[in-house]
């Protein structure tokens, strides 16, 4: 069943949205921050990161813009759209609810 892929995809989304809520970032910046913040417990490969970014962008939740970077390389910076901010709020609520539920079912407090 696709429960696990949902989980990964779903968590990736909320992770990305949360990071972009703090500041606009380019793809590599996001990947780096995730690794740093979780001490390497979560890690995004480019191959899994960009599909999620494009999907989010397509849904109008984030917006990417090319900006000049070091040397001749351009980088695409992503930021949260107003819709993205709302989505993030909802998802945060749901995760809290879910974790609460999980906690009650599994007996792990704040699972």
């Amino acid at each position: 069943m696709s429960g696990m892929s949902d989980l990964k995809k779903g968590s990736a989304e909320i992770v990305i949205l949360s990071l972009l809520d703090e500041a606009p970032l380019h793809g590599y910046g996001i990947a780096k921050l995730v690794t740093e913040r979780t001490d390497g417990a979560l890690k995004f490969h480019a191959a899994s990161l960009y599909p999620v970014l494009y999907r989010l962008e397509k849904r109008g939740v984030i917006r990417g813009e090319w900006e000049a970077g070091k040397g001749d390389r351009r980088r695409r910076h992503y930021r949260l759209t107003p819709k993205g901010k709302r989505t993030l709020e909802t998802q945060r609520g749901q995760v809290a609810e879910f974790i609460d539920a999980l906690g009650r079912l599994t007996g792990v407090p704040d699972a």
Partner: protein
Amino acid sequence: MPDYREVVRERLSESRLPETVLAEIVEEVAAHLADVHADALEAGASEETARRTALLELESDPPLHEALPRRPARAASTEPWKRGGFGIGFPSIIEHAASLLQDLRYGLRGLRHRPLFTVAALLTLALGIGANSALFSLVYGVLLRPLPWAESEQLVVIWRSAPENPSSRGPLTDDEFDRLAGLEVITGAAAHEQREIRLVVNDTTTRLAGASVSAGFGQLLGLQAQHGRWLADSPEAPEIVLARNTAAELFGQPSDAIGRSVVVDERPHTIVGVLADGDSFPAQSAAWLLRPALSATARSIGFASLTVIGRVQAGTDLGTVRATLDTVAAADTPEAYGRGTRYATASLQETIVGEVRPVLVRFALGVGLVLLIACANVANLLLEQAAARRGERAVRRSLGASRLRLVRQSLVESLLLGGMGAALGVGLAWAGVRTFVALDPLRMPRLEAIQIDAAVLVFTLALGLLTGLLFGIAPALRAGRESVRAVLGESAAGTPSAWRGRGLAVLELSMSMTLLIGAALLVHSFLRMAMIDPGYDADRVLTARLDLGGMGDAEVTNAAVADMIDRLTGLPGIAAVSFAEVAPPAAPVLEREVMIEGRPLGAGDARPRAWAIKVGAAYFDALGLEFLDGASFTAEDVEAERRQVVVNSVFARRYLEGDSGVGRRLLLDGGLWEIVGVVADARLGDVREEAMPTVYQPGQRPVSNMTVGGRRASFSIGSWLVIRASGDVRQTAAQVSEIARAVPGSVTVARLDLVADQVWSNLAAPRVLAGTFGAFALSGALLAAIGVYAVTAYSVSRRTYELGVRMVMGATPRGIVRGVMLDGVVTIAGGVALGTVAALALSRYIGNFLYDIESTDVLTYAFVAALLALIAAVATYVPARHAVSIDPIEALRRSSR
């Protein structure tokens, strides 16, 4: 620093993205890899390690090109002219299809993981859909598909209708045909009479149902021969056209028949054409001859034998045609047919299929109900499944799947089930239709038009999807409404889903009750028909239809018939043998007018009408009819054709004011006849119809020579033998066949039947109707029982914890069962009550098909209600028993985990 753009582009070579989009993605991902590479170098890695680390970023499952959305939005290009070049605001069909495909895959996987549910749902659906699409193919083929003949909607059939029976359809005379053909509203007309055609090929005689047709018949219907041509209007030598099947049977290849010579009516005929089987008219005709023009004298007798088909101008409605015909009838109907005779007309289509339409419509109602029950059942199964999978959905919801997505996923699963059910249903329908056509239990017209074709497939698929939507909508909406908290709720029976399940069960029960009542009424009615006492012993009476082998010389033929009767009379195993003009269960075609001596007719009184049948002296013995007064005429009376008659009881009661009438005289066929006996009534025609007033005339000469207008002509009446067996009927039948063959001359036995067999086959339509409805009703009841069982079992399983607590607190098993049963009783009572109301409303639609029983028969309703309640109670009791077999401690432990 290596340039990663080529590597990335290679990885994406299989993606079908537009180049502009691809270039941006390549640039972005390559930059990412370059950053990884740079960071690795900075952390002290070698160039090679850095490169490998960077390339690792591209490894994933699924591969990158598959994971990418088909059309990423790129609204924020820094080059404004590139904006909007792809995917903005254009809902992409491909993308929808892709995600739908994903839903389908997910749905299929789900079905595979729940084999029990899937099999149950699919079987239910296949049955329901299959029955419906089989019926649709019948309805479509028989009722809806246009007739094969040219512009057939303009064709009407015209008959004579008797004043006392406006729906009767009598034949017309040649004069009438000429007159009708000359009417302005009719642009073309042709006539035909159905007859048996004895075809002699190489000394072998084949009897065929056929028609002799007027000139212009083929042209009117636009008949195109498959081989050869249609009959010429004025041929040089006699011609005949055969149906394809017949031609194939006789000559191997149908085309080989063309040009062959066959003997019909003792004259050689040339086969000029072979007609495709579907084109046959009248239906089931196998051969056509041109009807010779009648001589003036033959016309003057005014013998009516023709069915007239007319073509009306396009757009002319039947009302106009009727009005014209009424005017004609009022002006000049021959006096011989009585005052008030009118012409009746109906479209050709109506004429051919009119009788089966009401039966098919009832069938459609029946299978429709079965399908609805099936839908309710599957909906119930789905609701349970949905409840069981709430946890799974809650997780998906909390991780970002939208409500819409979940609703769609749920609907896709239902549609998938519906579609698969339809596929299986087509298979069932195909098998069912083939069986039905092969058995032809209703002797339906246009059977050849019935097939599983594109129209049926489209109907079935549409039905499957509609069904999927019907049973899927409730679970789907539910899936969309659920909150994540629902995952916690594991409470008992009072939840909305439990009530919905009960509601569906009530619906199922009520629909099944409606079907059962319909079936019970039809079965009851059929049993009454089967138990009708026709007044004679149908189990012992054999009838033999004689084939006179062409009329030939009347004396020789009549002597041969008498010889046959003599040889059979007195044989062991045969109690009585008699000649009869017509034998049961077939009624005489015409009623005749009789006058009774000493019973003056008041002005406006209807003339007494009766069947008149010529019979031999032993006829009453052969049928086993008792005399209420007087006695039969004797063999000598018959031989001398004395003017003596026997009348039946209903004749005496109606026209002679009592059962005694011996000695009185009546006027029939222009002569006075003396009544010598009054005999008990017998239902000589359809056993469902009361006995008609009948006059039995003595006679056993089927052929008579007459001189009409100076020319000798032969006429024959129907010729049958009625034989009463005293021993084993089948053995007697074999004996009769053997002796009949031994009689010299051209008279042979064309067919030999036990009357009981024929009565039985005449009851085929009500039998099939009752049987089919019975099958619908039983499958409906079975499905409903499964539904009730499932609802109860599910409710019990959800209440495991509650029931466990109750048992721990000291509830007795009996009390628990009672509690569960009580819920069931409410459902059953609701279903039976609703079903009774629905059945009362619908049962009048089968009122016409019922014999000797009211469509509101209280006993039938009570019986069905009790039966259904019993079935449902058993379906409730089984899971209720299961509830008490649960170990309470285990139940509590399981529920609290």
